[in-house]
């Protein structure tokens, strides 16, 4: 393809130019990714075009300045001229940049119009930002009805430096977003608490997720593979720890994946009327706690006061169970304590409340059943 070879030629030209400046090995990440969508490639080309233009102007202007610095020195006996205006020159250097800018604005306008055209998607997925994870709901198209949370998978030990860091350190999740190759995927973004931002550089996509509002963006990945991004809007404590991973699968693999997901969902669905034993509930609760609560309240239940209060010995965890269920369901206004009512099932909430009331120094002995949680939902 002609456009592809142009991109490659531009890439090499840029690499040569910038390698001169940086003087670094090619192995280092130092430049914009070419990406795997047509739009990223357009952005990439536009960026190269502007960079070359900018470098040429920069070199021109500063060649004049440095010529002056070397030639028009007092130490060389240069006498100062006394001119201080020249209307012709001043008009030229106002009008010429203006014309150059039109040539920059034109391709930028074209790309932007294409980027914002989210019409006729094959698949629509809602991405919800939570403090600090992403939730995905497949709303329309193949895979409709699939819904899951996507949480950082990097172990705590790697972050704290007691274990060796892996290749995808901080850019790995338990459940990546899965999409088919070559299909137009529309992403709706929103958030549950504060503003987050959903983006994947390889797709040329970045869209703020704003609580209470729905925004959209789209991409059509042209190559299978795994692509990684991060939340890019400061969203509190663990802003740096809520990556976005997208797996692009071939058509058949994608169909297989959606079928698997639906089977799994059916198998994993908890019977809300089941009556649990204390040990089963605690074990389940510990899992829920580890994926939802541990970032703030810590594994030892001591929290990080005052922003993140301890649960070990807390009034709520040792008081009436209704108040405890309520705060997990509805969150606490004006704090980072999220409302988990919509994220977790009755069984999961019952489990985590049971766990919190019977872990560490808390020995209330209360066993909360899914039915108790259901009764507190309004």
């Amino acid at each position, binding site marked *: 393809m002609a456009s592809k070879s142009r991109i490659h030629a531009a890439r090499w030209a840029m690499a040569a130019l910038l390698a001169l400046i940086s003087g670094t090995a090619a192995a*280092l*990440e*130092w*430049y*914009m*990714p070419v990406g795997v969508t047509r739009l990223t490639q*357009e952005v990439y080309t*536009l*960026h190269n075009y502007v960079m070359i233009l*900018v470098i040429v*102007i*920069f070199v021109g*202007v*500063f060649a*004049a*300045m440095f010529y*002056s*610095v070397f030639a*028009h*020195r*007092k130490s060389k006996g240069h006498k*100062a*001229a*006394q001119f*201080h*205006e020249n209307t012709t020159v*001043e008009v030229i*250097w*106002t009008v010429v*940049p203006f014309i150059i*800018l039109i040539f920059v*604005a034109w391709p*930028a306008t074209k*790309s*932007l119009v294409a*980027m914002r055209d989210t019409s006729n998607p094959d698949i629509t997925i809602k991405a919800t930002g939570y403090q600090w994870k992403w939730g995905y709901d497949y709303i329309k198209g193949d895979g409709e009805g699939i819904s899951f949370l996507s949480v950082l998978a990097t172990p705590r030990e790697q*972050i*704290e*430096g007691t274990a060796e860091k892996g290749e995808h*350190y*901080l850019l790995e999740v338990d459940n990546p977003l899965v999409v088919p190759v070559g299909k137009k995927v529309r992403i709706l973004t929103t958030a549950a*608490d*504060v503003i987050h931002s959903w*983006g994947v*550089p390889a797709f*040329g996509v*970045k869209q703020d997720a*704003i609580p*209470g*509002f729905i925004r959209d963006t789209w991409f059509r990945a042209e190559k299978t593979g795994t692509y990684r991004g*991060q939340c*890019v809007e*400061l969203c*509190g*404590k*663990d*802003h*740096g720890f809520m990556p976005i991973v997208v797996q692009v699968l071939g058509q058949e693999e994608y169909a297989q994946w959606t079928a698997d997901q639906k089977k799994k969902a059916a198998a994993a669905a908890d019977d809300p009327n089941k009556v649990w034993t204390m040990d089963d509930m605690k074990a389940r609760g510990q899992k829920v706690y580890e994926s939802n609560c541990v970032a703030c309240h810590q594994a030892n239940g001591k929290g*990080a006061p005052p*922003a993140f209060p301890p649960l070990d010995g807390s009034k709520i965890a040792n008081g009436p169970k209704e108040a405890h269920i309520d705060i997990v369901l509805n969150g606490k206004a004006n704090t980072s304590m999220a409302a988990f009512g919509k994220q977790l099932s009755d069984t999961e909430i019952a489990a985590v409340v049971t766990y919190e009331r019977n872990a560490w120094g808390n020995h209330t002995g209360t066993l909360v059943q899914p039915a108790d949680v259901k009764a507190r939902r309004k």
Partner: protein
Amino acid sequence: MSAVLDTHGHGDHEHGDHDHHGHGPTGLMRWITTTNHKDIGTMYLWFSFIMFLVGGVMALVIRAELFQPGLQLVQPEFFNQMTTMHGLIMVFGAIMPAFVGFANWLIPMQIGAPDMAFARMNNWSFWILPFAGALLVLSFFTPGGAPGVGWTLYAPLTIQMGMGMDLTIFAVHLLGMSSIMGSINIVTTILNMRAPGMTLMRMPLFCWTWLITGYLLIATMPVLAGAVTMTLTDRHFGTSFFNAAGGGDPVLYQHIFWFFGHPEVYIIALPAFGVISQVIPAFSRKPLFGYASMVYATSAIAILSFIVWAHHMYVTGLPIGTQLFFMYATILIAVPTGVKVFNWVATMWQGSLTFETPMLFALGFLFLFTLGGFSGLVLALAPVDIQLQETYYVVAHFHYVMVAGALFSAFSGVYFWLPKWTGKMYDETLGKWHFWLSMIFFNMIFFVQHFLGLAGMPRRIPDYNLMFETWNKISSIGAFGFGLTQLLLLYIVLKTIRSGEKAPQMPWEGADSLEWTHLPTPAPHHSFETPPVLK
């Protein structure tokens, strides 16, 4: 220009040292009660330097944590507090007061006035600042610490913060009051107190840039005060300006903030342009090229700065028509900015150049500010910005404009006017060291951050993937070098005051504004008790 000395009789009573004036309180009371524009200017400059060191230490905490992947020194909450306070303190505590300090010292002298128009208000507008600075620092000691929301204070994250957020809001109110009073004073002084014959179009460009900056401040600081007050009432009084559940909109905050925030960029940059427009002609021994077009370009930039704010918000999901409008308006700013750069280069062209420290910093400014302007043009293009928004590319861009732009220009001004202020010469060799070390370390910190941004590293994160490690290491080493280098400036200034050689009457042969041509060195305590005679 003539270099005629005219001290207008008052010079007879001077003892060559303006610190010992014949009347008024002495010691600490002198500084608390002073209404003298030079004393107040001095206090502004020292305050700004102290805040510069405080904000600098915070930057070093950030860079130390980012030296390698993993969490080593600080926890993420504290890291966020550092990024927030570093930004607020540098913008409102260091850079802005530094240029108000220059304005106080120089504007009355440059227009032939005895003092500022509202001398007592001038005292007040300074003395508000230490309290505002104290509130910011105090917020670290409240439950929950300082706010960890970024200097932009975006809602609704601000709603989750502790009491430190309220202290920060009040600090912003106070800083705004100080700025408004300061700018009313400056505008009034320039419009009403020029010596006979000092027409507007004969004023030194520094006064022009401050006149326009004054208007920008008066127009935008109340808007910022509004934004933080709405945050305050959302936090405590049940309003929902920025809360969708109550009919508000979090993005509204961003519109209000950036309606202040973009002119703010020029509030910082214009006085810097002013300083450079004094320094380059002086060391080129040639009048400023295109004086009139400089004035028009400055005005054009100021007007355009009000209609470009949403280029900070390309990824919030604005309608495409809005995005296009803000993209075109932003690109347009390149035209007057380009005119300024061309004019400065044309001023040097065919001059008789020397390269003392003020000129070196001015050239450093010109070179790096232009680079920052170009990365600004790249970011102005919405499709490219969508890749680069909220990455280190943005961080690199605005530090080229704020540090290599505004700060280098302030350094240039300090070296340029230090002989006039103190009557003594600074150590030229040490000054050159300060320039070259600053230049090298600055680029070490920030040039590589362009690469980080292009490769996709988000800003405001305390930890990162291994692929970003090398650039972060280089950047962190540069940061510590840059920080230490600034202690050299402190040493140079103190050395000048204590044991500098006596400055000649005209340390710079090309300088031609009134403070050089019509006042002795050092400048007397009161500038012009009778207006100078201008031909």
